């Protein structure tokens, strides 16, 4: 049925992707499968893993800090929609044809993205400093007593604030290009039909950029659920575990307490949660994402 030529092509096709497949196999599939086994064993890195069934998962279910860390990670990911909203607003403003210094503003908002996460975190540590941080100093000038930004209740909102600031650049760029790509003709047609700016925004702009919105949402949520470095530097999970994200907790168990089995079990649990969130995103997307 299939021609000889076709079969030959298929052969060469596979031959060309073989190195990549091999790499995936060695560096992804093998670690993945072994992590399944490790998650069911007790493993201190030095000695062979000792199989102990589902004990790690049992401990996991009973571990209040693990659950707190999941809640924290979900809480932290609230920053994603918030950041998207801000990015969209700024993109809409910059998208006005008569705006001056568009490039400058674009650069300004993109700047945090290219800065080292460590440097940015240290800067925020100063900005938010309780006693002489920038924010509280400004508040002081206005005769307002600034709060302690790293108290148990405010630590996470502070982290979200920082995350929104740092993550806005990329969303902004994506939104700007998406806005640019919405065909002008729709707006003209809508204008002829008597649609106002609001109506145009909700009926043309929003659906028009919905694939990009979806992309930012999915990648943003995944990134937020895996967020780690800045928490480690900024708060090290405190106070009282208010900012212990799941990955930070995994890291501590793996590298501070050499409890790889438990860390892998948590890794899998988090993986499942991320997968569920993402699949839910995809399912919901059928209702609000419009591809041309």
């Amino acid at each position, binding site marked *: 049925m299939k021609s000889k030529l076709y079969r030959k092509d298929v052969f060469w096709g596979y031959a060309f992707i073989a190195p990549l497949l091999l790499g995936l196999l060695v560096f*992804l599939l093998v*670690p*993945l499968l072994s*992590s399944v086994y490790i998650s069911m064993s007790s493993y*201190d*890195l*030095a*000695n062979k893993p000792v199989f102990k069934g589902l004990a790690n998962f049992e*401990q996991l279910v*009973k*571990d*209040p*800090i693990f659950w707190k860390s999941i809640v924290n990670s979900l809480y932290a990911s609230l920053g994603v929609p918030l950041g998207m909203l801000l990015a969209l607003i700024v993109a809409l403003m910059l998208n006005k044809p008569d705006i001056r210094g568009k490039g400058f503003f674009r650069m300004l908002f993109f700047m945090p993205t290219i800065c080292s996460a*460590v440097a940015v975190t240290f800067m925020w*540590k100063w900005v938010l*400093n*309780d*006693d*002489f941080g920038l924010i509280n100093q400004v508040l*002081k000038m206005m005769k307002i*007593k600034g709060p*302690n930004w*790293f*108290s*148990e209740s405010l630590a996470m909102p502070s982290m979200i604030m920082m995350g929104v600031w740092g993550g806005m650049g990329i969303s902004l760029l994506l939104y700007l290009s998406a806005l640019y790509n919405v065909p002008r003709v729709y707006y003209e047609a809508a204008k002829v039909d008597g649609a106002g700016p609001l109506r145009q925004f909700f009926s043309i702009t929003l659906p028009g950029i919905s694939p990009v919105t979806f992309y930012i949402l999915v990648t943003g949520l*995944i990134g937020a659920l*895996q967020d*780690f*470095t800045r928490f*480690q*530097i900024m*708060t*090290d*999970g*405190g*106070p*009282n*575990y208010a900012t*212990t994200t799941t*990955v930070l907790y*995994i*890291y*501590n*168990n*793996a*590298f*501070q*307490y*050499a*409890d790889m089995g438990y*860390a892998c079990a948590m*890794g*899998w649990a*988090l*993986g499942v949660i*991320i*997968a569920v969130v*993402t*699949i839910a995103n*995809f399912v919901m997307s059928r209702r609000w994402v419009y591809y041309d």
Partner: protein
Amino acid sequence: MKRVQSVFALVLVFAMMFSVASCSKRGAIVQTTSEELLDSGSSAASGTAAGSGAAAVKTASGQKTGGTSGAAGTTGGNKYTGPKVTIKLIHWNQAGQVEQMVIDQVVSQFEKENPNIQVNAQIVNTDYEVKLNTMIASGTVPDVFLVPDGDFGTWVKTGVMLDIDSRVRSSKVLNLNDIYPSAWERYQWNGKTMGVGHFYALPKDIGPVCMYYNKDLFKKEGVAFPSATTAMTLPQALAMWQKLSKDTDGDGKIDVYGITRMWWEGVVLSSGGQILSGDHKSFVMGSDQKSISAIQYIADLINKYHVAPDGTTLGSMNEDTMFASGRAACIENLRASVTSYRQYGFNWDVCPVPAGTVNPGENSWSGSVGYAVYSKSQHPDAAYKLVEYFASPEGQNIMVKLGFNVPLYKSQASSPDYLQSGKEPANAAAFTKAAATQPAGLWQLLPNRSWYDMLDQDLDQVWEGKEDAKTCLQSITPSINAAIRNGNSYLFQ
């Protein structure tokens, strides 16, 4: 679409798995003394000063390989006489280039004295623990590796460290009686408990803790300097800090505090409080009145007397800055801070940390890093020689001369190289005095220290004034006990 989803999910799982491995490091929970650089320029000429007091100690002047330099014993037992080998050493880098310089100096002297051993030193710039854990997993640990004392328990339990007990006890180079016991006890392990049993590592340094105080602020407020030799009692210290705390701009908020933050471990221990039960299997602070009052004392400094800032969750950076900018008159800290404090534009000195009256010597904990021999090393004899050399009077003397270490040896405590008269702190002797009595940190109590990290987090509620010490300590007891059990299950079998 379906396929896209499943591929996506798979990729996510992978990404998650790797996010653990690739993440950046968090520093050792405790920064030990390694970062100490005083002044590398201190080259003080005399080589005869230090080690000469101890028996069987080679003085620092014995630099050539001739073997005639030993002050007392023969050199026969000290030298490595085996075949020519190359051993690997791995070390972290907490003090920038200084670390490299110090290691190079000690190693090159060691190589001169042991011509058959060549040392290949590797300095790890970041993520030392992660790097070593990876090496442990792949069985490629260097012959000699640095062990921060906070990681000793985790690693010794896995069996990556060679039992060097008989070598240490028969050593002709070391003089254990002359080393502060708390410096070497923390590298012992008997299969169940740390602090007793066999040697699995030897200390490279010791980092005791003192209270630094801003002399200018004391003078300005007319407050007498604390005693250089005797620790103040806790009520005395409170009274002193109250005199120093000031609201300078009249906004109702304190601007200059007496102290940044007392370290709770020392307050509890010096007050005679008990943290774990005798068998280390359960957490007892919740039912121990002395512990409760000690914790409440610190909380009151913050929330009741306002002599210490609240919510300082930013850790040492914030505290250091407060001290640097004259916003706090006192700060409790490791000796490692001496170098950076010397750059501050005010006069300061150190004194013993205020303490409870039961065990005033345990007014804080000291940090340390040590060296261990990899249990599967091909050259254990040569590797041990190097470990021993770092802890020997001679090796120590090189590091003390560089201004890097608090001497491990009591007999070196009065070494002018260490005391550096004319430089701050004038009361440098307070550190060696503290080294003699301060125990290791609480991670010493159990190999898996997750319970301790948890306790530290839980206490934030007390520092924030949300709960009193008693309520908090009692309510967290079950979860701390669970963490002790989960992390150290071998104790309960």
